[in-house]
């Protein structure tokens, strides 16, 4: 699997994501700078990492979503290339229009940085094939703007179409229906606030995130 990790000024989880991808796929991902207007030839997975792109100016993810490389990411997503947006990456994907809704300031205003239990709501997606439906896992979160909001009709559609991939078991940030991660309508774009790339080897204390990348590798390589 040839992967690419997008790097914005202010990204700070790009290397964690690159390490996770290299460990799982055996290949170093291409690190693609936000000013590049093209992705490397033959890319079959794109990761938009966490961090504070452009210092969260205007709105989290707003500036990054309009950077040159994102036009290429939107095109690739439209061709069916799998795209994951983690934390700030999730904010970027909503701002870019690849995912519905918006991520607002946490309901209690505080930055939340801890491990949180999640339920895998959809185990049929490209990204969650190696989990069981309803399985409870633990990923860390570290965010200030993780409060997922969308209008009721959008939320109902996400639920009805099985596009809620992960849900918080407890109240974390005020997200509507405790949504932690969602899929686009074609199922090839996932955005989530928790960080799977931070729990991939025993030294991290957990390996719950590793299966996300392994499952993706299996589906993409199949």
């Amino acid at each position, binding site marked *: 699997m040839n992967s690419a990790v997008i790097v914005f000024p202010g990204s700070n989880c790009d290397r964690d994501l690159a390490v996770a991808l290299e460990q799982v796929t055996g290949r170093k991902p291409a690190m693609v700078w936000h000013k590049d207007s093209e992705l490397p030839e033959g890319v079959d997975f794109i990761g938009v990492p966490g961090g504070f792109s452009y210092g969260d100016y*205007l709105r989290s993810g707003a500036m990054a979503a*309009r950077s040159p490389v994102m036009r290429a990411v939107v095109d690739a997503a439209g061709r069916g290339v799998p795209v994951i947006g983690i934390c700030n990456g999730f904010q970027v994907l909503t701002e870019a229009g690849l995912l519905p809704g*918006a991520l607002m300031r946490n309901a209690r205003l505080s930055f939340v940085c801890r491990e949180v239990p999640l339920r895998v709501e959809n185990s049929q997606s490209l990204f969650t094939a190696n989990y069981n439906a309803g399985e409870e896992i633990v990923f860390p979160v570290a965010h200030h703007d993780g409060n997922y909001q969308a209008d009721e009709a959008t939320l109902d559609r996400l639920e009805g179409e099985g596009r809620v991939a992960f849900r918080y078991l407890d109240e974390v940030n005020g997200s509507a229906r405790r949504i932690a991660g969602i899929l686009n309508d074609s199922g090839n774009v996932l955005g989530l606030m928790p960080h799977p790339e931070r729990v991939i080897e025993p030294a991290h204390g957990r390996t719950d995130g590793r299966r996300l990348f392994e499952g993706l590798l299996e589906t993409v390589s199949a």
Partner: protein
Amino acid sequence: MKARVFITLKNGVLDPQGKAIHHALEGLGFAGVNDVRAGKLIELDLADGTSDGEIEDMCRKLLANTVIENFRIERLENAPA
């Protein structure tokens, strides 16, 4: 030509910052504040002849996230330089 863009959260969208400000005002002893909503003001210095449509386009494409925010444009045609 100058224009101001006021960006506010849509009705019904929870505004945690507004709530915190409200709480702080009460802490300072200001009674009778029913609600507080925080927004943004963006001032644009534009080439003469920039149309309303272009400013609206700027709002829709970048300045406001219309999923959660409304915007209002105020043109200051004869503002002193």
